[in-house]
């Protein structure tokens, strides 16, 4: 036991010195960005350093919850920029994880499309600058149909399902889609309406074609491997699937859906805010924004980038939805204390 303890202490000591060294190295010349894995063009690392003189260091995460957990536990002083989804922005503000951005220092802010300003996730436009954005819809196989005529009933009505299907395994997203399918507001926190949405999902769950709940990537894989006929996925996954199998189709149901945006935020204890602003400004550059969108296959929130991007990419409605599609999509609000309601509703969905 003593040996183990000794080894443990040695390891801790080693880890601590390693941390110290890292900090010394990190002096103002480095910008540390916390970001989803595989969410930036690797070529940009060198390019950014060449253009701004700051060294770009990436800290990767796989899930929003993991990212917030990490920040809450280890503090925000190791990061400069944090890429976070719209739904967690208010929570991060509340927990003191992110700080006001000095917009004067990000001149390229003028390129941002107006639909990403004054939204509920950041009503005062002081905490976020959009990075990439996307939509959520139904990916399915079979005869091509008019994308504006598809209803959620293709999944929720057992008479209309033509094969196995999966739902999204994410409480807030799935419940908001069921709310919309029932004709309610996606951001409703009305208990009766949520109750109806729960019943609607439970009814679909009884369909013998219902295969289960899955993440966006899992759903895409199931449709691609013919295990599923339809699944709810994000548009980036849908495009990847369609690239592999052109018989697939992606639609935003006519009752509506939700869009989401991943935003750049400033860490509340950023050791290098100047570098953080340089990074934000770099991403919002017209050409860089276009390069990023093309590489990741998601839509750019950058109007100037849309002008330089090629027509084929721009006219691909899977990635860049049409104005009518945008019309019927909303951003999900921060549920605040209704989060409890959504969670209880989700427990019911997953139990019965």
């Amino acid at each position, binding site marked *: *036991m*003593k040996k183990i*303890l000794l080894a443990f202490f040695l390891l801790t000591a080693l880890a601590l010195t390693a941390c110290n060294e890292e900090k010394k190295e990190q002096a103002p010349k480095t910008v540390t960005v916390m970001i989803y894995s595989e969410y930036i063009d690797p070529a940009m690392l060198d390019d950014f350093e060449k253009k701004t003189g700051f060294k770009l260091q990436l800290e990767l995460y796989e*899930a929003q*919850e*993991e990212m917030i*957990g990490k920040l809450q536990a280890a503090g925000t002083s190791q990061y400069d920029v944090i890429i976070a989804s719209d739904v967690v922005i*208010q*929570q991060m503000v*509340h*927990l003191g994880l992110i700080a006001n951005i000095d917009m004067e220092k990000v001149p390229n802010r003028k390129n941002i499309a107006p639909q990403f300003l004054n939204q509920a996730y950041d009503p005062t436009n002081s905490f976020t600058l959009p990075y990439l954005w996307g939509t959520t819809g139904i990916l399915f196989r079979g005869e091509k149909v008019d994308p504006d005529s598809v209803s959620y009933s293709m999944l929720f009505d057992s008479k209309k399902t033509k*094969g*196995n299907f*999966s739902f999204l*395994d994410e*409480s*807030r997203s799935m419940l908001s889609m069921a709310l919309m399918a029932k004709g309610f507001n996606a951001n409703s926190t009305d*208990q009766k309406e949520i*109750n109806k949405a729960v019943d609607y999902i439970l009814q679909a*769950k009884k369909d013998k074609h*219902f*295969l*289960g*709940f*899955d993440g966006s990537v899992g759903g895409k894989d199931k449709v691609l*491997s*013919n*295990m599923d006929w339809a699944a709810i996925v994000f548009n980036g996954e849908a495009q990847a699937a369609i690239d592999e199998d052109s018989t697939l189709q992606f639609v935003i149901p006519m009752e509506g859906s939700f869009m989401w945006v991943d935003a750049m935020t400033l860490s509340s204890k950023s050791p290098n805010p100047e570098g953080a602003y340089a990074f934000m400004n770099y991403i919002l550059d017209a050409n860089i924004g276009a390069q990023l969108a093309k590489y990741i296959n998601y839509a750019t929130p950058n109007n100037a980038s849309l002008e330089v991007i090629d027509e084929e990419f721009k006219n691909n409605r899977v990635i860049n939805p049409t104005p009518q599609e945008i019309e019927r999509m909303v951003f999900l609000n921060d*549920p*605040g*204390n209704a*989060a*409890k*309601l*959504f*969670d*209880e*509703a*989700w*427990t*019911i969905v*997953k*139990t*019965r």
Partner: protein
Amino acid sequence: MQTEVFEGKLTTRKHMRHVGLALTSPGMLWLLVFLLLPTLFLVVMAFAQRGSYGTIDWTFSLDNIKKLLGFSSFGWSADNLVIIWRSLKIAVITTVLCLLIGLPMAFWIGAHKKRTSTLLLALVMVPSCTNLVIRTYAWMLLLGAQMPPSWLARTLGIIGEMESLYPGTFAVYIGMVSCMLPFAVLPLYTSVERLDWGIVEAARDLYAKPLRTFYHGILSQMMPGIVASVVLTLVPTLGMYVISDLLGGAKFILIGNLIQQQFFGTALDWPFGAMLGIVLIVSSVLSLVVFKKTGGKSFV
């Protein structure tokens, strides 16, 4: 002061107690810091409340117990209890399956020469060196619609025309049993190795029928091993949720999922998660106590 002789040395009880304490203190310190304190913290947290945005509001009440019993914003429902019941059911069935498969396996391994049996035992352990999630993904592929097992089951009419073995209950049990089997086999093998075959011989000499010989001659000797293997399978399966999620299509949740949902899902209700954690700890400890009580004694 009363002196005693211990290992040829003259010593006092007090001195021996001190030496014993000094020797066990690192272990006790470890348990204190990494087990007792966190558990105590969990108990305290279980009676706190969820504040806004997932913070913890330290006003104490019994609300979480009410919530556990099913009183939610949607009125009373048995959902939480159903989840606990379902977790228990899956854990017990998995344990029984592991035991039924593990026993013959342990005897078979034990029947070989020492060198072969060590090799066979290593083969049982090797899969555990791979990450659990990767092994589970392997099952997902293997049990998929286009693979031979599903095709065979379809041909035999066990499953419908468009169906596959994954996702479903069958896949969940396959995953659970394959994951837990090594833990069941190891203690069983140890007790097979230690069996006193003289007792079996004596039973035969006294004209005991095979079943009776097995029951009194072998099984009663193996009880400690069986208890160990039951505990080693039952307790981890109680909290398992990755396998049921991946192989069962995430249609139904277990207590592990419910806890995960409280800490990392939309709920961010750490206090309720702590309460659920306590339920899990209590049911594990209860099963340990039950098996300790019955395990010491033999069947005879």
